[in-house]
């Protein structure tokens, strides 16, 4: 980690993996995202929190264009997201995503889940793709489940496979959309451990989560959203100890006081 956040002060755009400028999104009449400005540095870990319906998931889903924005611009790794389908595919190749409900392919084995995209998108030889996949499955600590089908695994195991599946594409950015919200309490830890390990290795991560412990230990920056706006962003320490806005204070008191 030689390029620390201090080196990059925003005048050269190359330092930012993701640049979002004046971005707006509507669902019909409903204004979901309002004037979002966000720059993400390489290697930065960002946790996005906020009440439900505040647009956190929608925001990160805009970054790999699972949702389309209507105004402003989103530039990921130098490629702007527009209606150009080829550009969208280029971005999606470089951005991994982990979903709340895992979304593993139930008709493929764990190993085939991991090799599908490398084989069909990266055009890797199967053998090589399988070797890579086994490496990542080992890192998420389930190499012995490689030949099973997703339906045979526990929720925590499935989510770790989903992380390995994304990593097999060797993405530059990882997006996490509430990765632990559908898990039993004892399985949350095994998934968070994998995410923490990934963070210490220097992966750029954007993470929508309610795990405030994770935010405190891992995040470089915590972003609080409400009603489609970024209300407040700060280093985790300041964010939790000294929130500036009333809405942030209310939110924190609600989730931390029980």
């Amino acid at each position, binding site marked *: 980690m030689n390029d620390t956040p201090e080196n990059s002060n925003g005048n050269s755009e190359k330092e930012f993996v993701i640049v979002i400028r004046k971005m707006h999104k509507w669902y019909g009449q409903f204004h979901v995202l309002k004037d979002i400005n966000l720059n993400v540095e390489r290697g930065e870990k960002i946790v996005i929190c906020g009440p439900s319906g505040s647009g956190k998931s929608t925001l990160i889903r805009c970054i790999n264009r*699972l949702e389309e924005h209507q105004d402003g611009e989103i530039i990921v790794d130098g490629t702007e997201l527009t209606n150009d389908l080829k550009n969208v*595919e280029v971005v999606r190749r470089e951005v991994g995503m982990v*979903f709340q409900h895992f979304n593993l392919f139930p*008709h493929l084995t764990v190993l085939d889940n991991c090799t599908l995209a490398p084989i069909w998108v990266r*055009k890797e030889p199967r053998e090589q793709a399988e070797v890579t996949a086994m490496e990542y499955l080992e890192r998420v600590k389930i190499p012995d489940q490689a030949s099973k089908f997703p*339906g045979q695994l526990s929720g925590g195991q499935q989510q770790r496979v989903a992380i390995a599946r994304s990593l097999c594409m060797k993405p530059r950015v990882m997006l996490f959309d509430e990765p632990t919200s559908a898990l039993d309490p004892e399985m949350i830890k095994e998934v968070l451990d994998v995410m923490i390990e990934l963070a210490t290795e220097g992966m750029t991560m954007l993470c929508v989560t309610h795990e405030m412990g994770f935010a405190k230990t891992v995040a470089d920056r915590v972003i609080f959203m409400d009603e489609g706006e970024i209300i407040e962003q700060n280093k985790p320490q300041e964010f939790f100890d000294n929130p500036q806005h009333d809405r942030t204070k209310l939110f924190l008191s609600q989730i931390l006081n029980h």
Partner: protein
Amino acid sequence: MAEAAIASHPRRNPISRLWNDKQSRSVIIQVITISLVFAFFAYIIHNAVVNLQAIGKGFSYNFLWQPSSYDINQHLIEYDSRSTHFRAMLVGIINTVLVAICGIVLASIVGFILGVLRLSKNWIVNRLAYCYIEYVRNVPVLLHILLVHGLIVHAFPVPRQAISIGDVTYMTNRGIFSAKPIYEPLFLVVVVLFLFSLAFMWWFKRHAKKVQDETGQRYPVFWIGLGTIVGMPLVAFFLLGSPISWDMPELKGFNFTGGMVIRPEFIALLLALSLYTAAFIGEIVRAGILGVYYGQTEASYALGINRGRTLSLVVIPQALRIIVPPLTSQYLNLTKNSSLAVAIGYMDIVATIGGISLNQTGREMECMIIVLALYLVMSLIISAVMNWYNKRIKLVER
């Protein structure tokens, strides 16, 4: 506690005890059910035999070997009015199987296309598919058959004013007349080459998969396949000096002779049955694709897999599990609906052995049993094949 409970019912009679035992009760119910079913059929059959005897008829299949003394307009095997009833039945079976197989293939293709169009985001395409489906499936299939038959018979010209397509094919209200190929010995080479190219492609497809597994490069298998299977025999055909001669249809008197003919009854039945069933299959396919959780598509997109591959690698394999069981029912429906052929004089099983043969011999009992058994056998074969396929693609759950 347990002893006390037992002691509290000291004098239950054995029948009550048997009836209240879970296992023996289920045995008793099964025995009663089976006896009732057998009794019912025994009564019906006994009744039939008694009634048949009363009017002086036995139960015998000997009539099958008597000459049928009626003509059948479409016969793919040798047949004339001196052939036996058994032979007539065979012709009927072949005609039914022919229209069923062609119908299933056509209905599947049109149905899948309709299903995908129905999901199109293009408003016009979507509405067109919707209107087609709603019109076709809300009119009885018998009317469709009569309508298409009527269209062909009344809208197409008489043979003398036939619509000629390159003087090779003539469309008339008596069917489509076309040149019939007569193969010369050298043509065998073309056939052999064709079979060879099929075998080659089978090997090449596996080879291409191996190459993709090893190097990641993918050959355009479909186009190479098309080129080989169509191209190679075609080149050989012309190199050998076109070893085929044609028996051309010729207008003699009021109709064409020679060549080969696809009869209007067959066209009408095939089109009506398959286009009707396609409407249902379209909805089944749509349901199947919509039934695959959208998160699957999103996960695939998020990995950078494009739309087409997402459909073929992720969505369709999962949609098939939803599609296949109701699709089986539609195949069965189509096969059985083909019995409506009798309305336009297409000589299927019902029209031959279950129609004219029955009327001529008066063997209604025997004929109906044959027809029933034949439909049952065909349906069970379709079911068996589809169930086997369904099992093969089933998800592994735990």
